[in-house]
């Protein structure tokens, strides 16, 4: 009973349960009002940040091949560790995804949204004792703009025509107007480094709350508190240690046996098991990431919109969410945007499973014979099961899908973006514009549905330069409908981020931008004494 009470008190303090409800449930468990109030107060007291302690995280997503060079960040472990030692100009607010200044104090755009001025914060020090200056910021962005730096943020930098230092400011001149520039600069690759990291990109020196102490790629990372850090709302524990644990069971047992405080990527099918373990708290937040089946709309038979529509209607999204992700997901609607994005369209009807309608579209398309769907266990967790499930659902509409399982090694080279119909996944992007320009813009390298529509491109560019929010939302709604009704995307579900920690860990912030509380869990949480 006391465990349930503690749980309720915690939920109440986090605002997931209001005070009244808490007191009601506590009374139902046989507690008198004064005792319940006291419990609530002590839970709230525990919420006040405390400094000190050694935090240990066990995370999947690290390999011996990783580097500390932010340009190369690709998986979770370097990304999370990057948030410990480095900072970007801007970060994305967990509550609504809006940009908040970090190393940039403020910013301003010209009327044509092509010239942006960012005021750089003063009095911030790098770990090597030097002051962070606008010149360092400029050098950082110059390095990421250089194709030879192999930066994952090159796509962000491509729209920048020129940049210069102007006193305490950095001024960007864009090729095309972009109202989202501040959010784009929150990209986790764009950590400001001394002299831009030129010459020593993997030195691990930044302005973050923790200094790099140990860097053993694929094994273990360690960082200690940087005493001269300028913020007091992050960096509570003394040391952060990240252990790379790519095996799910290893992560689970490490958490249960108290060897680590936080783990990421709890598998949906094991959530209910680990939730019952004493002292374990599950953190779940709907993400922008989604699991998809993509069709090349320029390749027969998928060049026929009736066939595409038949397939979109022949998938049972509810069953997908329940079976593949055990309910830890939200239904998709065949466009890559959900309510976690700013300006997300709200009134687009949910597409439902309708075998009869699907059959009639299928008949109209005139197609016959099996349709090959390539899948692999790396396409997304449960992708092989999902493809088989889809096969059975489509069979009810008389559509014959032939599932072909491909080896995981080489899937992203040989199958995805090459074969006309395959399973895949997308991580979220900070903005709708980011998502659409990565995968639906006609010139995008990763246009994995071959969606090439000049009218769509025009809307995309217009929305990008539009500061009027209503007009912008209107444009994004029209674009969503185009992808939903004419595109090659079958989007059954948006997955949740599921992390877990021990009940010692306090101050977890729900952040839909990335897993691990927006990659920032180690710098946001604290430990009780």
């Amino acid at each position, binding site marked *: 009973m006391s465990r349930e009470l503690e749980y309720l008190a915690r939920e109440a303090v986090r605002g997931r349960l209001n005070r009244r409800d808490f007191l009601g449930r506590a009374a139902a468990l046989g507690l008198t009002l004064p005792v319940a109030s006291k419990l609530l107060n002590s839970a709230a007291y525990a919420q006040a940040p405390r400094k000190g302690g050694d935090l240990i995280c066990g995370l999947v997503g690290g390999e011996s091949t990783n580097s500390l060079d932010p340009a190369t960040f690709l998986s979770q472990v370097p990304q999370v560790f990057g948030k410990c030692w480095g900072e970007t100009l801007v970060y994305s607010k967990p509550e609504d995804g809006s940009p908040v200044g970090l190393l940039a104090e403020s910013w301003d755009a010209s009327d044509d949204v092509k010239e942006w001025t960012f005021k750089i914060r003063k009095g911030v020090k790098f770990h090597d004792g030097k002051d962070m200056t606008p010149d360092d910021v400029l050098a950082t962005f110059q390095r990421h703009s250089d194709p030879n730096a192999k930066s994952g943020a090159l796509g962000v930098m491509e729209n920048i025509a020129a940049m210069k230092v102007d006193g305490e400011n950095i001024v960007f001149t864009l090729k095309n107007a972009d109202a989202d520039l501040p959010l784009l600069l929150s990209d986790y690759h764009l950590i400001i480094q001394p002299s831009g990291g030129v010459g020593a990109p*993997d030195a691990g020196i930044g302005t973050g709350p923790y200094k790099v102490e140990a860097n053993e790629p694929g094994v273990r990372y360690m960082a200690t508190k940087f005493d001269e850090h300028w913020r007091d709302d992050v960096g509570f524990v003394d040391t952060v240690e990240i252990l790379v644990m790519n095996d799910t069971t290893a992560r689970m047992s490490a958490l249960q046996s108290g060897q680590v405080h936080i783990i990421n990527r709890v598998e949906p099918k094991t959530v209910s098991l680990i939730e019952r373990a004493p002292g374990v708290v599950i953190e779940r937040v709907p993400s922008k990431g989604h699991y998809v089946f993509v069709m090349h709309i320029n390749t027969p038979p998928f060049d026929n919109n009736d066939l595409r529509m038949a397939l979109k209607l022949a998938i049972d999204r509810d069953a997908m969410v329940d079976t593949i992700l055990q309910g830890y997901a939200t239904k998709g609607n065949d466009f890559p945007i959900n309510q976690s994005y700013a300006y997300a369209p709200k009134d687009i009807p949910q597409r439902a499973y309708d075998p009869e309608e699907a059959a009639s579209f299928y008949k109209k398309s005139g197609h016959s014979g099996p349709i090959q769907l390539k899948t692999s266990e790396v396409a997304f967790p449960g992708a092989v099961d999902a493809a088989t499930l889809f096969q059975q659902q489509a069979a009810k509409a008389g559509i014959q899908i032939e599932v072909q399982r491909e080896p995981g090694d080489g899937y992203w080279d040989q199958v995805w973006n090459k074969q006309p119909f395959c399973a895949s996944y997308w991580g979220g992007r900070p903005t709708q514009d980011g998502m659409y320009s990565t995968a639906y813009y006609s010139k995008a390298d990763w246009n994995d549905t071959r969606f090439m529509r000049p009218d769509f491109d025009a809307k995309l560019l217009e929305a990008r330069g539009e500061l009027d929010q209503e007009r912008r939302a209107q444009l994004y709604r029209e674009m969503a409908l185009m992808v939903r009704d004419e595109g090659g995307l079958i989007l059954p579900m948006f997955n949740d981020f599921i992390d877990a920690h021990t009940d010692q860990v306090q101050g977890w912030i729900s952040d839909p931008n990335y897993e691990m509380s927006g990659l920032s869990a180690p710098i946001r949480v604290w430990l009780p004494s």
Partner: protein
Amino acid sequence: MVTLPPASLQNEGVVRHMPRLRMVGGPLVKMIAQRIALGVLLLWAVSVLIFAGTQILPGDVATAMLGQQATPEAIANIRNELGLDRPAVVRYFDWLGNALQGDLGKSYTNRQDIATNIGKRLGNTMFLALCAAVIAVPLAITLGVLAVRYRNTFFDKFLSILTLSTVSLPEFFAGYLLILLFAVQLRWFPSTATIRPSMDFGDKLYAIALPCLTLVLVVVGHMMRMTRAAILNVLSSAYVETAELKGLSPSRIIWRHALPNALAPIVNVVALNLAYLIVGVVVVEVIFVYPGMGQFMVDHVSKRDVPVVQACGLVFAAVYIVLNIVADVAAIVANPRLRHPR
């Protein structure tokens, strides 16, 4: 008058033939030299095979590094920078030339020095393997001898069942069972074998307790059963009967007379298991998050980091070859008939 054969022949098989290097000198040294030369040749062949293998795998380091994020221009940049646009043969001989001079080069992916990194990982792997071997080898041989001494009793059968079950239990399952029992339920040992630089020897032993135990369970059965079989084989020979008729105790017959003559097959099995402890433990490493060579190599294979894969492959092949040479030599030293080939 009958001439008695020299004393040494009289006692053939009953007295243990201690290796006398003075006597063995010439042919043995020649044989070891031959084995080593063959080993080097084999290593070279292995390096060719590994290189060819990594070329056949789909994709290369550029596409693997960039993953789903690969744009054609980024791929071209990486290939150009790493010299991957040169023909495979040129790249191989480049690598071979440097490797012969002791320079294993830098990793394609994170630009770290390969020799340093492999050194650390190999050290960890050796530490785990050695700890497991120190427990498993004496344990297996003692149990094997005891099983022979009390053969066909309840003790022997119990040992048989026990070792057969540990051998048949997949190592990941054994590992998970140990974690569940000793880490999650009882909390005696850590579930993950994290090695930190600040640890002293005792801490490290404590950290690797569970993976070490898992490995012991996996290898002890095989070695124990082979020891038992080899000794039983020797026990059926005539000289053992002689020893029995002389009135020697069963234990003395087994330890002093049978075991030394059964050494050759046992040494071979031990060498095979030692090699497994070093090169075959990637599953155990993953389960216990132990930073050894196996995981290191798998990471680099999946990233097509050819120089690192080459280096790892060579280290593994060298371990096999060296252990096999040692086993051969030991078997020959222990067996006079092999020592003097006709």
